[in-house]
């Protein structure tokens, strides 16, 4: 799994996650997100268009980050989920908690 991050002009952090997020790789995602929160970044867009899979460990990391981000006045948004990854978010009921958009551009709007 590869993660790349960049801070946009308006302070929103864009994370591109490539590959599979399982119990093993979720630790890396967790560390990256915790570091961003610790640096004061709470507006996070997770571009999952290159994400092939996510397990409950990955879902957990996303939701716990979203909770913390909300406390800091921001949130986690997701974009570009493929059908299978989107289905996992829906089975877990996370689509009711997180803003999920088709494109990265939509997620970057309206902060």
């Amino acid at each position, binding site marked *: 799994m590869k993660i790349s991050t960049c801070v946009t002009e308006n302070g929103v952090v864009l994370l591109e996650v490539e590959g599979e997020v*399982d119990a093993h790789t979720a630790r890396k995602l967790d560390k990256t997100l915790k570091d961003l929160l610790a640096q004061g970044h709470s507006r996070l867009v997770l571009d999952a268009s290159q994400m092939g899979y996510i397990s*409950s460990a990955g879902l957990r990391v996303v939701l716990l980050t979203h909770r913390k981000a909300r406390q800091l006045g921001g949130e986690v948004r997701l974009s570009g989920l493929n059908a299978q990854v989107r*289905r996992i978010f829906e*089975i*877990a*009921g996370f689509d009711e908690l997180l803003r999920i958009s088709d494109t990265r551009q939509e997620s970057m709007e309206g902060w």
Partner: protein
Amino acid sequence: MARNTTILTIPNDTSYLPIVGAYVMAVAAQLGFEDTDVGDIRLAVDEACTHIIETAFEPGEEQNLTIFCQRYPSGLKVTIADKGLPFDPRSIKEYDAHGGLDRELSGLPFYLIQQAMDEVRFVNKGWEGKELQLTKYLKVPSVETYFPQEELRPYDTTVEPAPPAKYRYRFMEPADAIEIARCIYKVYGYTYPGEHVYHPERVVTMNQSREMISAVAVTEAGKVIGHCALSGQPGDPVMEVSQAVVAPAHRRRGVMKELVDLLMKEARQRGLTGLFVAAVTVHPFSQRVTHKYGFRASAVLLGYAPRNVQMKKIVDQELPQRETVVYGYQPLQEDPCSRVFPPLHHRSIVTRIYSNLGLEREFASPEASRLSIEPSPLAPELPHFNLSTQIKSALGIAVIEIAGYGPGIEQEVKNKLRDLCYEGIAVVYLNLPLGDPHTAVVCQHFEELGFLFSGIRPRPAKPAGPEGMSSGDLLCLQYINGPPINYDLLQIYSDFGQELVQYVRERDSLA
């Protein structure tokens, strides 16, 4: 190794999870699962392996997990076997997929497994370790895709009888499957508890794999007008007689009797020791018919099927409560007298059940000194218990079966029960080995948890050395996790069935 099985063994290390994912996805895709189902199977297996790796071993302990993929015509069974610590249901909390942002997440992995698979089963094999068995069925077109809706309307039961005709009785051929599914649909609507019957392709593959043996009655023109089947797992010594239908215009001509006779003959040839039926109690007709064919009530399974089993079309016929069934049994072979250890307080009804079935049993009392299932100076090393749990999601029920007692068994059942109740399982059935002396004593402890007497399920006896035959029969208990049963609504045909229901009712504190 069986020809339908592939095996992958990995170290208990989460870095191997992608290999497991690639393996099960490849098997599932080759078997013909749709992409969504392939993804679901991968998710369930990944979650199961993760849970085992993270909870079943001591830190630093190096062990393996073995993942068996068994291909069946009807689908895929994935078994994950390990020799780590027993599964602890207390570690799981309920997961609410519609809860708020602060929802509890520890139950999420098992929630995903349940949602992704059709059947989930935990098997504790004592010192040999434990297994988590996950089954997914292939999606195949249902009967609705083969016929326009007007051809699936319920049969007109007031229809004039068909002209006198000769019928042929034979085992099904693949070309019959669509008509069988239509026949069942037209009689039961979408209410038959067992979704397989509505999928003609699945009926064909299950007959090929011998999970199902279908007999049909056909007219001289070759039209299917009746069906009845034996179903069970290949190798089961006792199979179920089910899916019995005769088109109304051809009823009262002995069609069903011919079908049942054909199946019984086949069952005897296959060496089955007995057959059983689960007859509904919303009306007495099925019980009357099965009684006529020699089945005798031996258990009452309260709340066995949901009120709206597969009720996609006939909502106005929703049942007033979960459907109770009468379990009827018929031996097919001479049943040798074997030894049973019924609890003293149920001895009289157990005697009545065996008498009603025409089965001879030696009633034994356990020696108190041999009964400890907790370690003691006399018995410092006791065998590990052997317990399995099967969840039947479509029916909302679970079956816990104990094959052997050992230290911690009562706590294990208590934990399982709590876990299953958390998951919203409506009824939990608990089967105890009547040939094991501990059953005589431990049964009462389970009843103190809220389990009620249900009855007996006869099974083949097992040789027990010079002491003679040990009974394979099961003593059945049941736990209702929901509204109390209204016993006044149960329609019971036979006198003994009524006696059995009354016995259960008197012990049901909520009745």
